[in-house]
């Protein structure tokens, strides 16, 4: 094998390793950005669920139901 051919093979591998490193870094950045998006999304969903719980809680709590009791069980005002 000539020196040129050997040089060519080495260059190819160096280039391949460089491209792989860049590719991995890009993937790392993408994954990092995606993970952050997912974390924010999770926080937003948690918040949404908490707000919904609060809203539902307001609607069905017993002190509200008290006002919907049958007439014989409720007072004149409720």
């Amino acid at each position, binding site marked *: 094998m000539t020196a040129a051919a050997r040089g060519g093979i080495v260059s190819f591998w160096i280039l391949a390793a460089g491209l792989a490193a860049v590719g991995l870094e890009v993937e790392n*950045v993408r*994954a*990092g*950005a995606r*993970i*952050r998006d997912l*974390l924010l999304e999770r*926080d*937003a969903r948690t*918040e949404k669920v*908490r*707000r919904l*719980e*609060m809203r539902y*809680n*307001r609607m069905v*709590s*017993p*002190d509200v*139901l*008290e006002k919907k009791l049958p007439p*014989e*069980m409720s*007072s*004149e*005002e*409720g």
Partner: protein
Amino acid sequence: MNAHSGAHPAAMHRSRLCAAAVLLTIAFAALGWRLFAIQVIDHRRWLESAKAMRRSTEPILAYRGDIHLADGVILARDIVDYEIGIDPKFIPPDKLPRVVTLACDAMGKSPEYRRERLFAALDKKERGGAYAPLGRGVSEAVVEEIRTAVNRILGSDGVRGFRAEPQARRTYPRGPFAGSITGVTDAAGQGIEGIECSMEEWLSRKNGFRELVRDAAQKTKIYQVGGVHVAPVGGQDVYLTIDSRTQAIVEEELERGIRRKRAESGLFVLMDAHTGDILAMASYPSYDPDRFADYPEAERKKRRANRVVENLYEPGSVIKPFYFAYALEKGIIRPEDLVSRIVPPEVKWDGGSTAFFGRRPVTDVHEHPGMTFEEALVHSSNIAMALLGLQLGRPRIVEVYDAFGLCRPTGIRLPAEARGKYTSQSEWRNLYSTVSVSFGYELMVSPLQLVTAFAAVVNGGYLLEPRIVDRIVRDGVVETLPSRKIIGRPISEATSMRMRGFLKRVVEEGTARYLAIKGFEFGGKTGTADMARGGYTKKDYLASFEAFAPFENPRVVALCMLEKPREGSYYGGVAAGPIVVEVFRRLFHVNEEMVLTKLNRLAGRE
């Protein structure tokens, strides 16, 4: 090639090559040295500098614990909204007013507010400031709306020019409902009143943070796997013993009763007679925790106290059952004994409605010739109780307070609990003080102490520690606080049973006879105390009624107090009693027709 041109060309080339090689070697050596210095010698410094340029941290919000009622009703919860602001460095001066106006309009702020924020932002820009806040408590939807509009105005700089930081904000979805129990937090999120204050240790939270890496344009933030990530520590959820339906009834009836009697203020507390659990607690006027900071200072002062726990009162006649039960327990009196049997020489009493204790007259509302001690309790005779007080003497009177837990904190998990007090040995004027304390003066007790002691009178004689926090929950792990904590046994079951009978007679034929409910038996004791304002003026009264129900097996004890009732009668049985009866009626589903007509009239329903 010219042989006479001087040096040989090959030698010349070699020397040039040598020079170039030396120069290159020096250059590469310098470069190498620099690289070595950066990578090895100053490695740490440069690494930190590079990290600092790329890295940032992002807070992870933790939620303060919720406050729930026993049945799950949410009284307090953290929600996340945003504080928005601008970085004037990234906003050209000509666009600054547009951005501020847009943000303020989206938040629905007034022109004055907008102007003030604009001046502040311009000032920040002039001084090279990095952040000018525009508003707090902004919802996510509004933030997105503003962000889109700002991006349109500023283009690529919009990302850096506009900031929105999430922050947890305390909300009270029930408003004023159970407000004096729930309490409130300050601007920093620390409890300053009510359960928010007393349970701070459990409710408090600690934000976490995560490390992020920014791209070269500082636009995209990237999460780094393996980077620093400190998890937030949320508060624990606190569940109270209060039942929402009962609390709603109590608040409604108390407010109605106070309006009816045009009283200055009032309170109501309902306790489970056998466990000491507080089922409802209301103090009027109270406050809406969501609007706590908006009340004017004087108004806030008036509303903030939970009167049941923090206030002290001279209780008046509602104290009498404790002396009576104690004397009965110790065999000092028998209910059927005539009161006249124990009249000492220093007392002049002919059986009429006035007696003279030394030179001090003590009066009863009615004459009760041949009155027994049982009748004395039923008709709330001041004369008989003063005579009993003399029979007991100060040491045993103090023993009564100790036995029933009066004038000492109950240990309830609410802040600023009042201790109570009675006249000290050195200030005790023998005849005068003994007579006064016998019908509830010269001692200050909190309503909570009274209702706890009253529970001991009717529940078999067990003095219980009142409990308002039922359980604490964190991540599904439940820690239930002990219920029915017995802290004393002032009287026996037999004495307690007899006391229940006497207190039932109070409702059937005594001072609370207007309050009887047909087909529903309960017992109670009325009290009317002259409120001291520098002296006893006979103008301001404290109307009280303590009661238990049902008679056979008491499940609840209640205490209602109205301060300074101005409309109609100020007597405890008439002013405070109907409120308790209405609560019992609704609580035990007693039909309205069963309540005697006279009570209906008293309650203003006819």
